[in-house]
């Protein structure tokens, strides 16, 4: 735990108000240098927005509001982004639905159940999961997981065929490389970050509240429902949003297992496409308006993830600050 910064910092030698008025050159230049390095972060973010929008301008000006049209056909010069926005939303949603219960479960296990010396090896395993490269998940997904899931998908598909809602979601066509497979792979990939952030937030629940609940005779479940979750609700929502942002932007694994078909369908087992995947797969051969359109998809993706990340980080920071202050 870091100590709270004292209200008054000790005045370093050479700072205004100390004995000498002018600070030595070395001191001032280090300050400028560090400030420049810090501002670089802001500069890069602004430059990303400006330069990519500039490259995408011919798409924006050609299509106008049609950029959200539902037809993507480069051969016919039609570049509507809707199939990819839809695919991004669907795969990210599947990933969140699969990953969040597991992540929160592991986070609660780490904070409320296992003792500290057991928690450390579990955290190591989570870190291992986080360091497996995206492309390795994709390789495994397309060569091992997708062929295996194909059989499961088709048996589920034939089982629910004709059933009203389930038939629309899980009915045929069934393909190993599909929205759902991409969702599963993305779920594996976002579990570490959602787990570690949830754990951080749950760990700020004051021990005295926890012990109070136990002293009243609560079981662990009742303590978690009455104390831990209400305290950390906001932070967990932030962690989930952050996972959503990751799932939306994760590229290579999705590019390999999503099936590469720009269609809007309710069938989750059908091949689809999402924004990062189409950029990765088609940017190399694209030129002219086609390239501008892919660049434009990047601009949209950047905007979506920035909005989600700002919201998520705000929520997490506020939640942790409130806990510490309480």
């Amino acid at each position: 735990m870091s100590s709270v910064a004292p209200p008054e910092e000790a005045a370093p030698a050479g700072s205004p108000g100390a004995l000498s008025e002018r600070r030595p050159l070395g001191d001032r230049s280090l300050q400028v240098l560090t400030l420049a390095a810090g501002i670089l972060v802001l500069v890069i973010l602004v430059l990303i927005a400006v330069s990519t929008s500039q490259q995408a301008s011919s798409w924006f000006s050609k299509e106008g509001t049609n950029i959200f049209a539902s037809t993507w056909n480069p051969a016919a010069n039609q570049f509507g982004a809707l199939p990819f926005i839809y695919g991004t939303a669907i795969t990210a949603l599947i990933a969140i639905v699969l990953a969040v219960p597991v992540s929160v479960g592991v986070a609660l296990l780490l904070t409320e159940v296992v003792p500290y010396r057991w928690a450390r090896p579990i955290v190591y395993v989570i870190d291992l999961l986080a360091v497996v490269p995206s492309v390795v998940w994709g390789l495994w997904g397309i060569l091992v997981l997708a062929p295996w899931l194909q059989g499961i998908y088709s048996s589920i598909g034939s089982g629910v065929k004709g059933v009203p809602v389930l038939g629309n979601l899980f009915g045929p066509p069934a393909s190993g490389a599909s929205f759902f497979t991409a969702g599963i792979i993305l779920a594996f990939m976002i579990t570490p970050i959602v787990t570690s952030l949830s754990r951080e937030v749950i760990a700020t629940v004051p021990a005295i509240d926890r012990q109070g609940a136990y002293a009243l005779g609560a079981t662990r479940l009742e303590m978690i429902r009455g104390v831990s979750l209400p305290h950390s609700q906001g932070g967990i929502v932030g962690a989930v949003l952050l996972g959503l942002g990751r799932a939306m932007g994760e590229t290579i694994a999705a590019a390999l297992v999503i099936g590469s078909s720009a269609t809007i369908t309710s069938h989750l087992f059908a091949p689809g496409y999402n924004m990062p995947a189409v950029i990765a797969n088609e940017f190399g051969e694209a030129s002219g308006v086609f390239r501008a359109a892919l660049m434009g998809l990047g601009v949209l993706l950047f905007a979506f993830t920035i909005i989600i990340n700002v919201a998520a980080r705000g929520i997490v920071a506020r939640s942790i600050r409130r806990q510490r202050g309480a």
Partner: protein
Amino acid sequence: MAATAGQRQVDLREPRSWRRSKNRILTALMVLSFVLMIVPLGFVLVTVIAKGASVISASFLTSTIPVDVEPANMGGVGPAIVGTIEITALATALAVPLGVLGAVYLNEYGRNRVLSRLIGFMADVMTGVPSIIMGLFIFSIWVLHFGYSGLAGAFALGCLMLPIVIRSTDEMLRLVPDSLREGAYALGATKARVTATVVLPAAIGGIVSGALLAVARAAGETAPLLFTILTVTTVNANVFSGPNTALPLQIFSNASSPYVGAQARGWGAALTLIAIAFILMIAARVVTARYARYTR
């Protein structure tokens, strides 16, 4: 005393009840979620090791990249390993010093100022920017004017690493106790000198370990390199000009190949890449355990 001795002993343990069962179910679910989390990791590691180990040999790691139709025992990924090392090293040389300087600003100079809080917040946000956006960004500001090169790839990876290094270093600097700084000020040192000779050395273990984790993450990234270095099959020792290649890119192109030999080489490259990432991660752990004076 005699009266109480005759009384029935009160059983404080909880009776078998629905409350207790629910609690058990919750614990079981938590353990189940942990199992669900490690099973895919186990599957991936076992598959990569099983399929990769049969391909990897000294010649696989050094020989050139063949065309996809060649069988598994032909050729290797030598140029990709050279490219990965070159580009990741250059990205590290760019991002780590800048990241450490940025963190020094956040924690030593700008403490609690609005600007430093904004930079810290935006660094957090930047860690969430998809890696493919970094590729598109460097493509539009660099590749379009100067062409594909390892340097462009290093820029893209550097953009990815910068916020991670800033955040991990900032966290480590925050753990250095103020009494150390105040002691040095009391001896008459300037802020620059205190930072360089007291604060950074005190936090160096944590800073190095955070940087190693950032390198581990960058070494496995594919998307930022896709549009910045292209993919070639020969060694390009000049990182500053001409198209280059890297391990993740080779895995990506082999994974989408229909040929068995190419897929087998993909597994071999995946095992190499995972080994590099894990070695960096373990190195980070060792550095933290042996040299970090202040840990969370």
